[in-house]
């Protein structure tokens, strides 16, 4: 049934391709209506795609988009909406940056120092998400509400901690403020790419490993099965011996731990400090990417790359005199149309499946056959 037949391939392609084409058409119409030539936009994207630096930046962006998407997807698998990835990664990035930048850390060997930084980030992310899980299992507070609120709390907490009298250092003449710069031993070296001034994040391998682990845990382990079962039907999961509260806590902790990783490629590969200009809003992009990639490890990777590429073509649009906001419009339309397209394809599949079952029912066994 789910073998790779030409029809199933076409069916699989229908939703994402259809949505992309639709988004392209909508964007072209908007450009045309606002007096811009859609062909200029294509030119701008072409120029961006030609430029190694933009491609490297796109892949780098995709790295943390992907991590954010995986964090969101872990919750999505059991219908748990961790809207709080945003707060979790920012708090985790700040605290781990402060630790990694602290003077005493310099005595540690590089590998250990990086590992400690990453583990602390995961722990902080998990702890922050764990609060929402705790509220849900003990008080029945919807995780949607609590994680949104915890985002706001995280914002204030980060802002409170990111002061010279606490975790930050202020540099004379600078209007920025952030944690002490992580010295070389705590940094993760990037890969130089020919023709690009930006380096590819070394932690791209971390993102890939997280993707593989995500795939493995969800499709190959009992835990993953129970996660899926809980998401599909909580009552059936309970009747099947799944401890739903435990699953809520575990999946929130896992989701938060991965959320804690979101800031790491940027922190250890480029910024080396958590400061005012540390990228924000990645948690929300993660939701879009997870939706687009249907929580699938490879689907999300492709969605993250697409997102990263679009985000990094904004400058090229700007240079060509095309409003950079067209990127937001494209991203928005893609998400909306992909959701609709997936639903249409899903319905079509269900019908096709029922027809197939109808085929199997075509012959009714006689009573003798059944009881023999």
């Amino acid at each position, binding site marked *: *049934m789910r073998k790779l037949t030409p029809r199933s391939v076409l069916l699989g392609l229908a939703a994402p391709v259809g949505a992309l084409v639709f988004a392209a058409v909508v964007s072209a119409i908007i450009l045309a209506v606002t007096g811009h030539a859609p062909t200029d936009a294509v030119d701008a994207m072409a120029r961006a795609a030609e430029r190694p630096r933009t491609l490297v930046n796109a892949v780098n962006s995709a790295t943390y988009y992907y991590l954010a998407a995986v964090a969101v997807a872990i919750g999505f698998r059991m219908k748990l909406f961790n809207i709080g990835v945003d707060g979790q990664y920012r708090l985790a990035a700040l605290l781990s940056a402060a630790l990694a930048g602290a003077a005493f850390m310099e005595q540690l060997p590089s590998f250990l120092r990086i590992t400690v930084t990453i583990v602390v980030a995961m722990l902080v992310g998990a702890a922050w998400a764990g609060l929402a899980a705790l509220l849900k299992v003990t008080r029945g507070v919807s995780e949607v509400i609590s994680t949104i609120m915890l985002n706001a709390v995280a914002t204030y907490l980060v802002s409170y901690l990111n002061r010279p009298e606490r975790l930050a250092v202020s540099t004379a003449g600078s209007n920025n403020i952030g944690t002490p710069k992580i010295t070389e031993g705590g940094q993760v070296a990037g890969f130089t790419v020919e023709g690009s001034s930006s380096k590819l994040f070394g932690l791209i391998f971390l993102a890939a490993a997280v993707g593989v682990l995500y795939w493995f845990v969800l499709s190959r382990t*009992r*835990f993953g*099965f129970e996660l899926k079962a809980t998401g599909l039907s909580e009552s059936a999961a309970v*009747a099947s011996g799944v401890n739903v509260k435990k699953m809520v806590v575990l999946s929130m902790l896992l989701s938060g731990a991965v959320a804690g990783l979101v800031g790491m490629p940027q922190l250890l590969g480029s910024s080396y400090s958590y400061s005012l200009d540390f990228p924000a809003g990645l948690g929300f992009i993660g939701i879009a990417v997870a939706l687009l990639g249907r929580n699938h490890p490879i689907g999300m990777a492709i969605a993250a790359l697409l997102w990263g590429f679009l985000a990094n073509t904004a400058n090229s649009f700007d240079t060509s005199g095309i409003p950079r906001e067209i990127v937001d419009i494209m991203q928005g339309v893609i998400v909306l149309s992909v959701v609709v397209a997936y639903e249409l394809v899903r319905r079509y599949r269900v019908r096709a499946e029922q027809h197939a*079952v109808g085929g*199997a*029912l*075509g012959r009714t066994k006689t*009573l003798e056959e059944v009881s023999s």
Partner: protein
Amino acid sequence: MSTEPPAAVELTGITKRFPGVIANSDVNITVRAGTVHAIVGENGAGKSTLMKILYGMQPPDEGTIAVNGAPVSFGSPADAIRAGIGMVHQHFMLADNLTVLENVVLGSEPRKGVALDFAAARAKIRDISDAYGLGVHPDRLVDDLGVGERQRVEILKVLYRGARVLILDEPTAVLVPQEVDELFGNLRELKAEGLTILFISHKLDEVLSVADDITVIRRGTTVASVSPSDVTARELAELMVGSALPVPELRDSTVTAKPVLTVKNLTVTGADGRLVLDDISFTIHAGEVLGIAGVEGNGQAELVEALMGIHAPNAGRVTLGDRAGNQRDITRASTRHRREAGMGYIPEDRHRQGVLLEASLWENRVLGHQTRPPNNRGPLLDRKGAKADTRRIVSEYDVRTPSIEVNASALSGGNQQKLIVGREMSGRPVVLLASHPTRGVDVGAQAAIWDHIRRARAQELAVLLISADLDELIGMSDTLAVILRGRFVAEYDPRTVTPEQLGSAMTGAGKEG
């Protein structure tokens, strides 16, 4: 006949093909206005497809539909509702956490200006409920209702929308005899008001007692149109399947002295503080089937859930004996522990507790057995093992499916049930809690399921059997208990008891046990 008004519904030459299969072929049915018209047939005979066509969910490839003499063409259920046709589905489509009122008005909200006029809706629901004796209280939460009451809400919902032709899909599958009588009373009142009922069933006695006309469908086509006065149940059954009906019976007693499931003074309080299980005690021995008779909503669901560890009891003790005879107190054990200790569970509502509709058959095989071979190796899933065992179940239990990779939602209710029974009988359970194990399955499969239970019983399986089908209860049980308002009120020997005796004990009219 010639003076009668035009037929309420007339289906002529209806044919529906799915790729590679014909679901309906030249179906002709004439439903006279103001009658109860039964459509009988085995599962998979094409009844459901036919009703979907009539209800506008699928267009026919050929043929015509006429309502009150006028040809119609339905693009969606909304069209059918506008034409006065309403459907009560086998699986209820009610939102648990809304009240009856809210469920009924959902989608056709009453308006007064721009505001919702709930007062008017409430009054209208009361009127309908009273007029047909449905006994539905608009402000109760659906979550608190038993299966029987939910069905009446479904019927009311359809009436509320102004249906003049009601399609009832296997309505009695979920009811006890007294409730069936009530339902039939309702149907007669509806009929007297000039409404027309299309009644889909495979319970032939009921069909014979309530229907004015009967159409038999086999393999997608109408094989006979008969009047109930002209046929016996047996003849009707033979028209349906072309062979004799299976009979539920246990030949020799296999009851041993080895207690397997011992329940002492089990007490459970409901959400509203009311006692739903009051001091229940019983013991089921290896090789014994304990049947529990009772009107739906008298504590059966709570009993089963307490035994499975889904809801903790307020008081009492539950002990489980293993094959070696060692007794373990499992009163506080988790559902997983109980399952691992060999408790199988066939739930009353399979969509709520039995299957994952959006997961494949083999994943459904794993469900509830994810911690045991052949489904796992330590913390890992054994996909190969699970798939192989699913194929075994599919063939042993005659689950009709093209593949074990299809989603459970693609299967008919009966085939889902067969998969569940097959799954729960896997791995030699020591005790099986079976709520309505043959509900909604066709006669062939019913026989097969009974046979599987009998064989497992012979190998020392202890069974708690809850059923609304009194013939099944009497035929399959070694011991029979009657539950009423959360208490065991009577015990019978199934060899001597009659359905009537059981029925009156179930409603509290009989002797107190």
